[in-house]
Each structure stands twice: as structure tokens, then as C-alpha cells.
């Protein structure tokens, strides 16, 4: 069984010696953790000027109509089309993607070429599991801040429906032996070693969503922290219900105009909205679902978990120089970012670590943050984060606060739904969180917001935006 989240996990984030080491690796390593970030604001300001994503498309037990690069192309083309500059004027393309398919190694480069950004465009792909789409923004942000680039296209893409079937290790070994057997006798011997169970493939996705260190899958980690913070099944279901209602409302009110761009498949099918939304779900319906990760007594069901989904998202980041050169209008300014790590079995609590870290560094109180996008990996996990911030012991011993952090009101959190209703294309979500935070702040006329997510394997990322 997993250990309770102890302070050791969190104190690591505050360990000064480690911080210093990470700072030396700024910024390509992704985890840039400068203790003096406030002082380091002598770096250039970085703006998020635009962004667009595909609708998130629920995986329907077969490969969806788009590969990861297809998805990146579907929202990338219209995004580039509406920029007043030519696509080859970007300095770099950075794309987050967890499940890269064999035909599209380095999807960032394949995508940039297919987007017509020119043969001379450098492009690389980043991977930190569920944080990949935010990691791409972070790297872009740090590069522009440091004056190494002016205009970067940063995105995330994921086609979970294309996650490959993986041969069992046993089967791979058998095949290796068979293929290298030279004599007929050796081949026959090798053939005799074939076992029926070898033919049964492993769903790559299932393995990908299981932490290799603890052998807990992500749903189980949600069960763990839900239990530790007393999140009931009813509370999780209620949260999930509201996620669907919020997304449905946002869709109906046109809140995603310009952010979600329809995609068209080869067969002429139009996908114009996030199709995981179930506006007609209810507490009754949700209550009928069985636990999926820890049967039969668990609380985490398909209904209160994020959905397995395909989707892509891009944002355009620019320096002040690039903004002036191309007459761009900013959507928001990226003020700070932070990555934290903790015990993999309680990975869902990571947002409390990295977000609090940024706020401490920026001397911001809970009231200063007008809007939150906290990735809805699981309802129980979101609620556990909220509970942790209200837990005196946790806030004192783990977060190093004097008192409790306090309650984040629901009207400041995930106001237009989240991964439970939208889906969670893992490499994409972090990018979407940042883009949507910026768009929602603009719509609601709010000043400051944090986008944050937990990351499978025991990490978390957060990004602080200010209205520009």
C-alpha cells in the first residue's frame, strides 16, 4: 500500500541544494526552479498572444480519425492562418506528446513541416506525461525570457485512441529467438516455445497509465488520496456532474469561439465540439457506475474520472519585440512557472505543491488568484487538492505555510468544465489549461490566474498568468 503523503516528498521541492542544481540547467530541462525568480524578473516579459485547439474527441474503442500529428495540424493550420505573420517566422516549434506513434517520430518536426513552416524550422518534442503540453509552453517561455527566441509555437497533442497494442515481453523474446534461429531444427525448437498467451497483446495505454515504480495505475492513486482526505463517492460524483454542466454551458454560450476549431476527417466527417460532454447525466446515473480501478469497493468510477480522449492544442508565445514587429495583441502575460515532484502513489496532490510554491515566491495570497484551471484527472483528486489546502497539518508541514491556505471557491475553479467532461489527452491537457485560463480571464475580466496539473509518476506543474 502506498505511504501517506509525508513531508519528505514535499520538502524535496524546497531543498535548496537541489534547486541550485536545477537552476544551472535552465531552461531546456523543463524543471527550472530558481529560488530567486522574483529577482530574476529582469528577464524579458513573455506574452501568450493566441492559441487554438481541436475539439477533444472521445476514444470509441477503435483508433480515431486523427494521428497525433494530424490533430496538431488540424488546429495548427487555422491558428497560423489567423496570424499576421508568415509561419516560417517562428523561431522554434515545441510540442508535447506522450504516445508518439512509430510513423511520426518527433511529431513536432513532422508537424511543423506538414504545417508548411519551412524546412529550416527547428522543432522538438517534449514528454513529461500529463504535463507535456505545459512543459512545451514552459520551455518556450524560458527561452523567450532569456532572450534566446522571440516567437515560439508551443503545443501538445495526443491520440490516445491510437495507443498501440504492445506485445508481451515474453512474446518479443520468443520472436527474437525465432527470427535469429538459423537451422531448421533451431527454428522448430523456437516455434515450439510459442505459447497462446503470448498472442494476447497488452494495451499500451493501460501500461502507460500505470506508475512503474509503485505499479499503481492512475485511478488507484486517486483512490489513495481520496481516502486520505475523506472524499466521498457522492462528493466526487457531484463534482463530475458539475463539470459536465459547466462544459455544456460553455459550449452553448459560445465561450470556446476561437479556442476550439472544428476538425474534418478524411471521410468528410465534421467534429465541431468536445464530444465527451454528457449534459444529461445525473447523480442517479453517476451513482450506478461501478468502481473501475479498485473493484468492487472503490469510489473512482468512469463517471468521475477524466475521459480517454484525442486532441491537440497550440499557443503562440511572443517577446515584446516580436509583438511590436508583427503588431500582435497580447492575450495574457506568463509571469511564472513551477514544477514539483512527490511520491508517485499520491501524484494527484502535486498541484498544491507547485502552485503554492509560485504564490510564495510571488508573495501572492489565495485571494490574489482570481481564476484556477486545475486539471480534472479525477474528481477525487481535485477534491483532495482542495481539501489539502484546507488541512492545517498539510499546509503547515508539507507546504510550509503559517496557517491553512484556505478554500478555493468553486466559482473560481474550472469554470468551464475540465477533463472529466472534456477528456484528458495527456500530452495536450497542460496546453489547454493555460490557453483556456487566458481566454477565461479575458472573458471574465479577471487579473490573475493559475493553471496547474498533476502528472503521472508523481509530479506537478503550474503556471501563473496575468491579464495583459
Amino acid at each position, binding site marked *: 500500500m502506498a505511504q501517506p503523503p509525508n513531508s519528505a516528498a514535499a520538502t524535496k521541492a524546497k531543498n535548496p541544494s537541489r534547486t541550485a542544481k536545477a537552476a544551472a540547467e535552465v531552461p531546456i530541462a523543463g524543471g527550472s526552479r530558481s529560488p530567486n525568480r522574483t529577482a530574476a524578473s529582469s528577464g524579458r516579459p513573455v506574452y501568450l498572444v493566441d492559441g487554438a485547439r481541436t475539439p477533444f474527441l472521445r476514444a470509441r474503442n477503435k483508433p480515431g480519425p486523427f494521428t497525433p500529428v494530424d490533430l496538431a*495540424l488540424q488546429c495548427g493550420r*487555422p491558428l497560423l*492562418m489567423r496570424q499576421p505573420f508568415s509561419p516560417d517566422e517562428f523561431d522554434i516549434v515545441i510540442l508535447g506528446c506522450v504516445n508518439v506513434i512509430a510513423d511520426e517520430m518527433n511529431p513536432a518536426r513532422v508537424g511543423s513541416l506538414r504545417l*508548411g513552416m519551412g*524546412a529550416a524550422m527547428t522543432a522538438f518534442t517534449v514528454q513529461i506525461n500529463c504535463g507535456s503540453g505545459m512543459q512545451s509552453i514552459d520551455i518556450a517561455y524560458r527561452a523567450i525570457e532569456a532572450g534566446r527566441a522571440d516567437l515560439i509555437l508551443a503545443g501538445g497533442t495526443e491520440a490516445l485512441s491510437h495507443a498501440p497494442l504492445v506485445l508481451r515481453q515474453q512474446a518479443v523474446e520468443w520472436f527474437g529467438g525465432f527470427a535469429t534461429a538459423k537451422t531448421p531444427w533451431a527454428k522448430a525448437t523456437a516455434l515450439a516455445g510459442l505459447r497462446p498467451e503470448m498472442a494476447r497483446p497488452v494495451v499500451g495505454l493501460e501500461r502507460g497509465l500505470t506508475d512503474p515504480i509503485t505499479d499503481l495505475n492512475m485511478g488507484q492513486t486517486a483512490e489513495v488520496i481520496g481516502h486520505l482526505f475523506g472524499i466521498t463517492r457522492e462528493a466526487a460524483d457531484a463534482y463530475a456532474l458539475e463539470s459536465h454542466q459547466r462544459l455544456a454551458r460553455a459550449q452553448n454560450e459560445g465561450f470556446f469561439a476561437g479556442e476550439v476549431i*472544428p476538425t*474534418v476527417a478524411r471521410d468528410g466527417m*465534421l467534429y*465541431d465540439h468536445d464530444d465527451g460532454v454528457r449534459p444529461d447525466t445525473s447523480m442517479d446515473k453517476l451513482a450506478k457506475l461501478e468502481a473501475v480501478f479498485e473493484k468492487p469497493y472503490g469510489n473512482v468510477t468512469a463517471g468521475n474520472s477524466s475521459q480517454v480522449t484525442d486532441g491537440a492544442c497550440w499557443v503562440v508565445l511572443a517577446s515584446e519585440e516580436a509583438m511590436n514587429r508583427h503588431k500582435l495583441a497580447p492575450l495574457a502575460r506568463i509571469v511564472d512557472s513551477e514544477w514539483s515532484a512527490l511520491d508517485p502513489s499520491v501524484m494527484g496532490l502535486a498541484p498544491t505543491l507547485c502552485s503554492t510554491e509560485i504564490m510564495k515566491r510571488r508573495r501572492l495570497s489565495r485571494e490574489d488568484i482570481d481564476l484556477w484551471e486545475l486539471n480534472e484527472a479525477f474528481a477525487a483528486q481535485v477534491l483532495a487538492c482542495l481539501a489539502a489546502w484546507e488541512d492545517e497539518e498539510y499546509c503547515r508541514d508539507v507546504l510550509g505555510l503559517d496557517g491553512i491556505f484556505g478554500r478555493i471557491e468553486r466559482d473560481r475553479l474550472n469554470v468551464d468544465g475540465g477533463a472529466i467532461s472534456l477528456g484528458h489527452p495527456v500530452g495536450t491537457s497542460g496546453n489547454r489549461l493555460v490557453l483556456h485560463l487566458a481566454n477565461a480571464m479575458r472573458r471574465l475580466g479577471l487579473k490573475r490566474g493559475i493553471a496547474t496539473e498533476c502528472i503521472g509518476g508523481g509530479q506537478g506543474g503550474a503556471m501563473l498568468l496575468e491579464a495583459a
Partner: protein
Amino acid sequence: MPTGNTSVWETLAPRNAKFGPGTVLKAFTHWRLSKGPDDIGWLVLDRANESANTLSEAVIAELDTMLAEIEGIGAKGLVIRSAKKGGFIAGADIRDFKGATEVREVEERMRWAHEIIDRLAALAIPTVAVIHGYCLGGGLEIALACKYRIALSDARLGFPEIRLGLHPGLGGTFRLTALIDPIEAMTMMLTGKTVHAKKAEALGLVDAVIEERHVENAVRAAVAGEMKTDRGSWKSGVLGLAPTRQLAARRFRAEAEKRAPKQHYPAPYRLIDLWEEHGGDANAMQKAEITSFSELLVSDTAQNLMRVFFLREKLKDSAKGESDIRHVHVIGAGTMGGDIAAWCAARGLRVTLADLDHEIIAKAIGRAAEFYDKKLHSNIERRDALDRLIPDFEGRGVAKADLVIEAVVEKTDVKRKVFEGIAPKMKEGAILATNTSSIPLEVLREGLAFPDRLAGLHFFNPVAKMELVEVVAHDQASQATLDRVHGFCGAIDRLPAAVRSAPGFLVNRALTAYLTEAFVMIDEGTPKEIIDRAAEDFGMPMGPIELADRVGLDIGLEVVRMLKDKLEDPIPEIPAWLEEKVENGETGRKAGKGLYAYDDKGKPKKASVTSPPGPEMTDRLLLPMLNACVRCLREGIVEDEETLDGAMIFATGFAPFRGGPMHYARSRGAADIVGTLKRLEQRHGPRFAPDKGWEALSEGP
């Protein structure tokens, strides 16, 4: 970052081709001969003063001289290749054949050319044709006379002679049927279709497909006899027997009858006869080929089809300028708009496709993908074309496009409204084009801030099949705009015909006369099938009734209304049933129901024709169209008869073997036509009154 202005690949790409290593030993006007260090001779064709290689008499005569030289240079092998970027040899120089009337003379010339090709085939050293790009007709016949054929991956090989009313005449018939499966050989020659390098290799037509960088090694292997070849098939043996050939010939004839009726297109039947009688006997087949080819060459069909070839060249010539158009924005994703967009993307342009209705955009993309599956040759080409074809839900492409093509409904106010919306967003210097089929551009340009950059680009349905685009000028269009639009047509491999702005321009005005007369005949009680048959017997690819369904009755009705309103042309009344059909949604083939009912495959269900069409019927349909053509010519809608003939052939499929409506009129005689029109006028009314323009025509060109 690098500091140069050209990319790595742009700089290095031209280094790719090697047109013959070693020192040049002999250089004549068109051919040059060199010898490499490994004692292989390279005979390279670089026809003087021409951008592409074709076989003129001079080129063949010089080849003869070169072949005599080869023995003296002590080469152990000989390569033949082209120094032209575009390809190997594009075929015979058709200019040599135009106007030939004496069978004897042609036969003599052909016999002389055959002797030279035979000499090449009989060389004692191994010969290797290295083929890139186009290798057609006479070019393929030279390649066939070599011992080996090595293709580069961009090679396209074929015998397009059938499209000129001919069959191969320089040994192709017997060499190809002897080299590869005779059924495949005959199919290639009967359809005139070219095959790509890979397919050619599968057929055994070429021995290897390689990249330029391997040419020297491959040639060395071939000369050393180390190249593996895979030729012929078991069928060759079986088809050496006369009875099996008879069976196959019967099938070929039935197939040919479906596409090209014998009375109009004799060449396929002559080719089938040739093979059925002499297949397997190279000598006899060669002799028969020369005679048959020569007889075909002087026939009206071949001479008229050659005329069509030159009409195409003339239209192509007007499309050679630089358009500087890289991005096209198409507004309206219906059949026309969607197909124009798909076509442009397939031809390498970036395309944004906009429409208010998102579903319609999506359907157009789906249609494009289907089209690419059929017409593009690799998954990479298909992917790239689809990547370039961008569904534009936000209409952002307007601001980026070099050319905006409007293809919305045929209503003046709607088009004007679209213009108002997009004109301020368009980038400096971009061209606005309308795909209107009938509205005068003077009407559409009103209120436009930059009328000089407005032009008409009238495509025909289906875009992928109909090569013509009417490029419509108007009183304020700038020459620069029109030049760029012509260049754009060239860039997307379509044929521009310059027309002046007038209701219906040329093609629809001429077609309207033809279609509306057919409608009158329906009202008189003539069965539709018989009306169509009358036109088909003349040589039209389809009759007027089927054509009306194909165009769409709604679109047709709109055009006829507009023309009746705007022109003084004597157009018959619009029948009430036509308006009813359109109101009921029976708009033709696209609706599955129009004048005919259609099956799932879009084929009309026709009753069988019991009695043949009366002799007058063809004239009743055709002459109003000719009359309208003459009127357009007189009014200066088109500049000359050749443009007119080309336009009618490439936009409507007007019986190509007739050489075009004006050429037909001239061959039949203006006096005869005027007389017939007068008779029809007496019987059917003033709409047949001959136009004044016939007078000028009777006086000669």
C-alpha cells in the same frame, strides 16, 4: 543561423543530373555522343531551340548519322538519354504530320524512319535507354528498340497516339506486344494512358527503376549483362495462337465500341485488326503498321484531332506567364467551389476553403480525399494535398490569399454582398475572381474598391475532367490581373480561354441554344433518349438532356433565365415543367433525379431507343449552337475561331474528331449551314434565323 539566401537543397538539387559523363566526341545539332572512362558511349538528345525533345525528321536523320559513328568509337555499350529537364522524348513532332494528305508519301517517310530504328535495334553492343520524365509515342519506340530500359522514378511511359486518331507508327505495335503481356500492351495502346515507372517495371516495360544517383552503376551493370530482367509472361505464348488472339480481339472491340464508336474513331479498330492478324509475326506486323498508320494519318479524324492538339497548345501558350499565386482562398464549398479547391490543392497550391455552412466544407474535404485516393499516386502526395487543403471555418484565408475565388450561388446580390465582406480584408495586390457562369462582370465590379483586380474564372463541371477555364475580362480589369489569372490556369494545369464579359460568356451561351432546343423537342413529344442519341451520333460525349442533368437543372434554369433577360438571342420559352422540377428538388444527377432518374452510381436510367433519330434532329440541336458561336465571334466575345473551338471542346466535350464547332462549320460549308438554318427557320420559327456573322464566314478566313 546560416547567412545565405538560398536553402541547402535549392543550392544542391541541380547537381543531381548527369547527362553523359566523359568527353564529347561528336556534337551535332540535336544529338551529342560522348564516351565515359568505362568505354560506354552516351548518346544524348538535346533538341535545338526546343524546350522538350520531340522526334522531327531532322532529329531522326541525325540519329542515323550518329549510329554510323558509334561503331568507330570502340564502345562496349551505348546509353541513350535526354538532356532536357522535362523528360526523355515526348513523341513525334506532330507539326511534321499536320496537313499530310498523301498516303504514299507518309508511307515512304515511315519506312525510312523504321529503317533507322531497326538499325538501332540491331546494334551489336548492348543499348540502354535511360528514361526520366515523359517517354511517349516515338520516344517510347526508340526506348523499345534498345536492349535495356532503365527508368528514373519520375518516368511516365505511354502511347498516346490513339488520342490523335492514330496508333503507334514507329514500331511500337510489334515491339511492345512482343516485349510485354500482349493484353497489357494492347490496353496501353488502346487507352493511350501513360504508366508510371513502378507500373512500367511491373509490366516488364522497363528493367529497373532507380534514382539519378545510381544511373552510372546501373548502366554499367546493364552493359555487363548483370542486370536482372523480368520480361514477358505465359500469356505471350498463348496469345501467339491465332484463335486466342481472335477471342481477345473481340473483347477489345466491344470495349472500344463503348468509348469510341467506329464511324468516328477508326484507329482502335485498325490497331485491333493489326494485332489479330499479325500478332507474333514481327515482320508482317511492321509492314502492316506502316500502311495502317499512314492511312489513319491522312484521315479527317486524325487531322482534326491533331488540330485539337494544337488548339490545346495554343491555349496552354497563353497560360505560360508567372502568376505569383501560392495561396488560393475559395468561398463557397458547394460542388464547384469544393472541386476547384480540391483541384488547386492537388496541383500544389495552398488552399483555404470557406463557407457559412461548416458541414458543407467538411463534405467537400471528404470528396477531395476520395478524389485524391483515385487520382494521386502515393500516400505522401495524398497527405500533402489534404494538408494543403485547409477547411477555413473562420474565413481567415482571405487576408493571406493571393487569389480569392468566389463560388457562391449565382445571384448578383449575394455575390456583391460577399465582395463587400471580403474586399477590405484582402491583401494588397491580391486578385478577386468570380466563378459566375453568366453574370456580366461589369455588374459585379460596381462598388468594388479595386475593379482592376477583378476577373472572371469560370470553371466547368466536373473541374477535374473539364480542362477549360473561361477567363473573363471586363472594362476595368487590368492587363496585369488578366495575365496573372492566365498564368494561374497554367500553374494548375487548366486551359484558359480569354472571353469578354457578356451574359453567359461563350460556352454557356452556346450551350443554352443547344439545351433549350432540346427542351422544345421534349415538349413536342420526342423521347429524351432519341434526342440524346441524335447528339451522340454526331459525336457528342453525351446528349443535351443528360448534359442538362449533369450541369444541374437549377443552375441551368438560372443561366437560361439570365440569358433570356439580358440578351437579344432568340432563346425559346422556358418550359413550365423545368421550373417545377427545380422547385421539387429534381435538379439532375446530383439529386438522383432530374430529366432522367439515376442509379446509385450516377448512371441515367434510359429507355432503349426504338427508332433512330430523324435526319433533321441533329441539325436542330447543333445549328442553334453554331449560330450562337458565330454570334459570339461577331460580337468579339472570343478573339478567334481557334480559341472558340478549343473552348467548346475542352469545356463541353464537343465532338473532338470534328475539330471544333467552327472547324466543323467550315468543313461543311457556311452556305450549307445558312441554307439549313433558313429551312429550319421556316419550319420552327425565327430562333433559327442565321446570324449576320455567317456572311463574314462565307467569305473565307
